[in-house]
């Protein structure tokens, strides 16, 4: 959302710069003194005309179903943006206790180590998300050879990660383990 906000602000500032330049042109009479001529000078005559018609229709209450749809979509978009703006950002670090945090990358390294301790796991892909409550949300995808007992491996990897994180002292509030059957030629490790 912050990136989206930044894009919006950049576009807004770009618009203000363009308006400022247009105002200078206008002040020095470089393009005539009629603002109505600006769309023609910019080559946006058709767009300005259709926009003017649309606004006129809104003022007169003379809208077709497509206009209602566009206005509804704009209102909905505004509501979604407002909600996302008001929503507190998710924390960047994993909370262990009050005033004690660990970075997500450190948690990821520990989970990878615990997962790849299993000799049948050729590669692991770990995603760690911090939450507002203590503990991390961890998604593990472990790649194994085709034909392995995935249910047993899923249980083993889960136990291994839970046990290791328990020893390290990092609470894991949500652990999802997925076992993916992969071609060993496409994984980081072919043989263990």
């Amino acid at each position, binding site marked *: 959302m912050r990136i989206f906000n930044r894009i919006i602000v950049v576009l807004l500032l770009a618009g203000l710069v363009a308006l400022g330049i247009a105002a200078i042109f206008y002040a020095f009479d470089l393009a005539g003194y009629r603002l109505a001529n600006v769309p023609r000078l910019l080559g946006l005559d058709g767009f300005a005309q259709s926009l003017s018609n649309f606004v006129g229709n809104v003022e007169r209450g003379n809208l077709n179903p497509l206009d209602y749809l566009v206005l509804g979509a704009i209102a909905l978009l505004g509501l979604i943006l407002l909600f996302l703006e008001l929503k507190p950002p998710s924390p960047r670090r994993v909370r*262990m*206790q009050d*005033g*004690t945090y660990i*970075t997500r*990358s*450190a948690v990821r390294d*520990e989970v990878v180590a615990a997962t790849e301790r299993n000799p049948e796991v050729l590669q692991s892909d770990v995603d760690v998300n911090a939450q507002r409550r203590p503990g991390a949300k961890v998604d593990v995808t472990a790649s194994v050879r085709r034909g392995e007992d995935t249910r047993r491996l899923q249980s083993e990897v889960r136990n291994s990660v839970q046990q290791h994180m328990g020893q390290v002292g990092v609470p894991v509030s949500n652990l999802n383990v997925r076992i993916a059957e992969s071609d060993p030629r496409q994984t980081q490790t072919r043989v263990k």
Partner: protein
Amino acid sequence: MIDDLQLARAIREAALATTGVHSMGSGRYAEAATYGAGEKVSGVVVDPDEVRVHIVARYPLAEPLPALAERVRERVALRSEGRPTTIIVEDLEVEQNENL
């Protein structure tokens, strides 16, 4: 009343003297440091109402990380002039003589 830089230096020394702390962290998204004239103290951020200490823990761990963080907090609290202290474990560093 000591200035922020002196405070940061004292806190850094206290943190590094804690068994289990390998080094000070440097921050992930922005540099974690306290700045002064011609000098900065990395790993400690002294704010008017909070002190943040970024550490790298020594691996293998002799105790769970929350216990280590608590010991660092106890040591640091003596020097942080009553400001709340946040401990951030940035990484775990394997000792060179460990074959892990």
